[in-house]
């Protein structure tokens, strides 16, 4: 969104196409470190971004999923799942990241039927029930902190020791309805029409255990949405798009910004700044006649 605003203010004919406006912050509760707001909910902050985008003469296509990006003569062409095709002299990829899947039996079957990646969205649906939170980082700890307040019992399952911030670990470990299974992996998610349980395995002893749960919150990290440009641009081993400090990829005219890139810090304020830089660089590129 920031890239779009900067491009529009440089009077570039700009198209912003995306499945949604907001991305990861839409699933974030309290944001305390975006300057100008002491504490604001992720969705509210994104709504403010959206309102600002609407002030500019931009072509905004929301609810469309870009499925391919290709180089064409004098620029780039994107195609969407909805059957649309758009062309531009430059392209800025700012597609962010998506949740990593467990890839265990039952995950697919029970997606939306007890398996969720959005504690902030779906947490209340499981109040009074037993739930499992999978993961050991900050997202898992935050989901645990939310759920111990409303669930009957929370099982925190992590393949490693907890890797999140100490302040969050301290916050959750005193909960009386929390049981941790560190050094355990999820083997399967079970149930009939809805989730009824998970099977976990101790990584050392290989002993398996079944836990009765009505909800499974998967919080095991994020994957960059870079499939669109795989094979076209340079990527690191995590499949993040390689960019220099000017947000240039190895393809002239193709820029990238935010969490989908190799920028080391994945934060809203950083992503917004990267978007601004990418748009300004794109403008310079066009001023130089596309070189």
């Amino acid at each position, binding site marked *: 969104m920031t890239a779009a605003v900067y491009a529009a203010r440089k009077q570039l004919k700009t198209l912003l196409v995306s499945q949604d406006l*907001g991305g990861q912050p*839409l*699933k974030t*509760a309290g944001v305390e470190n975006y300057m100008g707001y002491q504490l604001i909910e*992720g*969705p509210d902050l*994104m709504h403010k971004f959206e309102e600002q985008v609407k002030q500019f003469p931009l072509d905004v296509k*929301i*609810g469309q999923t870009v499925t391919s990006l290709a180089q064409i003569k004098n620029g780039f062409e994107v195609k969407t799942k909805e059957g649309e095709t758009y062309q531009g002299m430059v392209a800025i990829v700012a597609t962010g990241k998506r949740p990593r899947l467990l890839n265990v039996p039952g995950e697919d079957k029970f997606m*939306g*039927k*007890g398996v*969720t990646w*959005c504690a*902030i*969205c*779906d*947490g*209340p*649906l499981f*109040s009074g029930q037993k739930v499992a939170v999978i993961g050991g980082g900050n997202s898992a700890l935050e989901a645990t902190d939310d759920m111990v307040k409303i669930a009957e019992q929370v099982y925190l399952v992590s393949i490693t020791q907890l890797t999140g911030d100490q302040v969050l670990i301290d916050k959750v470990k005193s909960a009386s309805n929390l049981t941790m299974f560190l050094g355990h992996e999820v083997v399967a998610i079970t149930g009939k*029409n*809805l989730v009824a349980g998970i099977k976990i395995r101790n990584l050392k002893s290989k002993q398996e255990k079944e836990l009765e749960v009505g*909800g499974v919150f998967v919080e095991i990290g994020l994957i960059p949405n870079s499939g669109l440009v795989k094979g076209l641009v340079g990527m690191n081993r995590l499949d993040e798009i390689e960019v220099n400090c000017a947000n240039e990829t190895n393809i002239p005219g193709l820029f990238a910004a935010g969490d989908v890139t190799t920028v080391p810090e994945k934060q809203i304020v950083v992503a917004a700044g990267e978007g601004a830089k990418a748009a300004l660089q794109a403008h310079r590129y066009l001023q130089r006649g596309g070189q």
Partner: protein
Amino acid sequence: MTKKVKVYSTATCPWCKRTKQFLDDNKVPYESLDVGKDKSARDEMVKKSGQLGVPVVDIDGEIKVGFDEGWLKQQLGLVK
């Protein structure tokens, strides 16, 4: 004829907020059911949609899971 619109949602779900914002912006009256607090509404939602994700929108018995602006416009006759 005004269609009967029900939105099954939780208090914190951003897509639920977006759905309701869309309905408010288009002055469409709807019943909002908090499935986090209301167990019978939760059961009703699971029965109608076969799943546990929110939002679920029921327009005269037609069910949609998630926020789908195109579907909402079509169902509500907002497409010109």
